[in-house]
């Protein structure tokens, strides 16, 4: 692709020509708009972009982006996205997933995804409920809260998504808010430009089922930690003390909730190789012939494999 200074694709190009079926006022609209803008600003083309969704209201987002869209199964967007990215590292791969999709049914993938650090942008729409199944508590709804869709107060505790991403090794961690699109665009861009697995939690009001943490409720509570001087970057040469200091600051911030709710970039760790780099280190041909781009037959359609080394290895006579 020719290098262009002015991006070729505009927000309009990324808007799919179909009706959106989220509820009026849903926070998802904000996230979607931020995605459009981020894509347009980054100048990637639709055919290089793959948006991989889970199942849920959030998991419909990929339909509204004019690019390759893959609607996976509930909880499975990350492994599918991983397969796509590893097979063709030239693609820009996004995951759009709900809080239930990510931290309930998909939690094993979430946790183990952190161990790989594949270069994917993981956007989790956190509305604290299961939107598409009509408002049950999700793993991010705190214990004892009762949204209007619950017959009883929530009997299970909640998981702090940023903390889980940290614990499991995500190398870029941030939080945005569905209605702060300007910040969200910046966060999506940073997450995408980060080489490695980036986790972006987006606080997303669900006006239909979550009557506790609404747009009004969030109003005035949110602030940007980076604007307040929080430095999320783990320096390449970080000694133990620096690391500990960042971790302590991180923990301090991620547990903050209530009157003041932090957003922004919480952690940037470029000191770990991506999974792609790790593979290439093992098998240098990966850089030249990733799985999607490997020639596997000659012009007559015959296998290219040279059987001789296998014969030698398993020679019986």
């Amino acid at each position, binding site marked *: 692709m020719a290098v262009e200074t002015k991006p070729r694709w505009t927000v309009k190009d990324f808007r799919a020509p179909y009706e959106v079926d989220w509820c009026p006022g849903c926070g998802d609209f904000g996230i979607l708009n931020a995605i459009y803008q981020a894509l347009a600003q980054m100048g990637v083309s639709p055919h290089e972009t793959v948006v991989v969704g889970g199942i849920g209201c959030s998991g419909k987002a990929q339909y509204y982006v004019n690019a390759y869209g893959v609607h996976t199964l509930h909880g499975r967007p990350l492994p599918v996205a991983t*397969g796509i990215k590893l097979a063709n590292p030239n693609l820009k791969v996004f995951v759009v997933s709900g809080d239930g999709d990510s931290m309930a049914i998909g939690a094993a993938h979430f946790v183990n995804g952190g161990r790989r650090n594949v270069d994917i942008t993981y956007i989790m729409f956190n509305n604290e409920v299961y939107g598409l199944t009509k408002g049950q508590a999700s793993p991010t709804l705190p214990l004892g809260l009762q949204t209007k869709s619950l017959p009883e107060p929530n009997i299970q505790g909640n998981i702090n998504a940023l903390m889980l991403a940290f614990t499991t090794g995500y190398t870029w961690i941030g939080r945005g808010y569905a209605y702060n699109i300007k910040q969200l665009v910046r966060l999506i861009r940073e997450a995408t430009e980060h080489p490695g697995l980036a986790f972006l939690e987006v606080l997303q009001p669900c006006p239909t089922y979550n009557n506790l943490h609404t747009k009004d409720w969030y109003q005035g509570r949110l602030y940007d930690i980076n604007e307040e001087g929080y430095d999320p970057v783990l320096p390449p040469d970080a000694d133990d003390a620096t690391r500990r200091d960042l971790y302590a600051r991180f923990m301090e911030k991620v547990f903050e909730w209530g009157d003041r709710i932090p957003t922004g970039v919480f952690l940037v760790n470029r000191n770990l190789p991506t999974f792609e780099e790790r593979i290439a280190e093992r098998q240098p041909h990966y850089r030249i012939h990733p799985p999607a781009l490997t020639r596997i037959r000659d012009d007559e359609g*015959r296998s290219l494999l040279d059987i001789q080394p*296998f014969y030698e290895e398993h020679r019986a006579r």
Partner: protein
Amino acid sequence: MKTVGELSWRIGGPQGSGVDTAARLFSLAASLGGLNVLGRREYYSNIIGRHSYYDVRLSATRQPRSHRIRVDLLTSFEAETLARHALSVVPGGGIIYNVKDEDTPFLRITFLDERVRQDLARVLTEEGVEHTTSTKGLLELAEKRGVQLYPVPYDELFKTLSERFDVPLGIAQRTRNTLAVALSFALLEFPREFLKEALARVFASKPKVVELNQAAVDVIYDYMASSHSNLAFDFRLEGVTQDGPRMMLNANQAVAIGKLAGGLTFQTYYPISPATDESVYLEAHTTYRTREGDEQGVVVVQTEDEISAIAMASGAALTGARAATATSGPGFSLMVEQLGWTSMTETPLVITLYMRGGPSTGMPTRTDQGDLFFALFAGHGEAPRIVYASGDVEEAFYDAIRTLNYAEMFQMPVIHLVDKALASTTVTLPVPDPTQVPIRRGEIFVPEEDEGQRIVKRFSLDTETGISPRVLLGTPHVHHWMTGGEHTEEGRVTEDPVIRVRMHDKRLAKLEYAAKTIPAEEKFQVFGPEDADFTVISWGSTKGAILEALEILEQKGLRGRFVQVKLLMPFPKEIAPLLERRPLILVELTRTAQLARLLRMELGVEVDHRILKYSGRPFSFEELVDALEAVLERREEEVTVLQLFE
């Protein structure tokens, strides 16, 4: 007169004690000496300590196709092997054992199942021997039956070795496997050079070890010559000259190499017996050389579970990578939801399913064919897939290429059925030719140059066969969506009743297209005369035992035909006329005779007899000869094969 060049040999011992190495040495040496080899491994789901054993069948004249239950020569390290296998040795055969084990009470053999103890005691009592609760009785009975006994003072031999070559006793003891093999070969009068060569190959990276073990061979040959007579022992082996190179492979390896030959570039797995070895093999061979001299290869990812394994492989497949995963029953059970997704999204994907004893955790290291119906119908809703079964190790290689082809040609998941029996059957075979099965990639959409960016109908309904050209993720100028939901031609979710019906029809039509496209010889194989007196039908790993059994019955004047079904979905209706020579006999490693039910469902054909085994162990041809005779002569409707000591 001794039997020359035909032998069934068994070695047993606790898991982790080197039984495998011994069997490998034995097999390789025999093969180097020109013999054809089939090895079969039985072991527990355990790392160290429980009983495992290895059968090696040799033949100078032809490739053995199944193991034997009757053992010509048993070699044992310890009492448990004696207890479990002494009764299987044929008159005129021999038992090599440690003198120390000659009177071990069964109760002291800690891992011997209570049931085995009881049955041993019962048999020994019935046979009227004196000692009924220890190995002593077994040896007594063996002798009575004309089995030759070769007690070996292992400890002394180690000592001799240690002294003669000035190595610590501990090191000398590590030659135990070589000892066992050498004892056997010496008894068989097989030239020791082959064993020495095998040692040189197996321990190629450790010259010291080779040296000591080769020395041990000489010690043993000398010891046997001086201490035991093999006059009454009925078997002998000699080196023979054979044409052509041979490899030695099991099905894990054959499938792995076959997948590489078939252009696999992405494999995922979660460890599980008996599938793991395939993926671990691929992990050790991620880079290969092409015939054109380039280096390329396969990315192998160990995932967090089987759900992730199949999901990740699906993702890779969407980009055009040839993708596969390998698993066994429990893992396959977890893959079912994503299997439906690949079917719905018309994603090509191969799942190699190594069947093992079920249901549930079942018997992880024992064989079974009980997953057939599950493979056919796994997943909610009506989701087309191809189910394909290999009958032996060589087929497994070529079928690995074929199944990768089918997946892309018909744009659906392919379940390639193999089983634990094949996975732990090692055979000598001619070097497979990767170019024999051409690589076919199905229809792939190619964009026009510079057509701008447009939405493309990935799931175009404008198709007779049901096939719409695949649009690989990343194809320039276009994009589309995909979903496990019902969808439009562009791949967007829809609940429109009319589109739903058309798409459902389109997907299912591909099964008919596959049935038309796949050549008959890939769908099934027929063996034996057209005017046979009976027909055997089966699928999968039973093939070898059936073919050998039919040969033997033919010698007895019972001429059978064998129809081996390879393609199980879509079912090859054209086999119906081949089943007309009655009686029709099903052979299967299940309790519920699944193929018989499938025949009824697919063809309305009723089998007359069923020969079943579901103890977790494969058929030997000997068992099938007996069972077929029972069926043919005594008209037994169902014969269940079960060995007490297997």
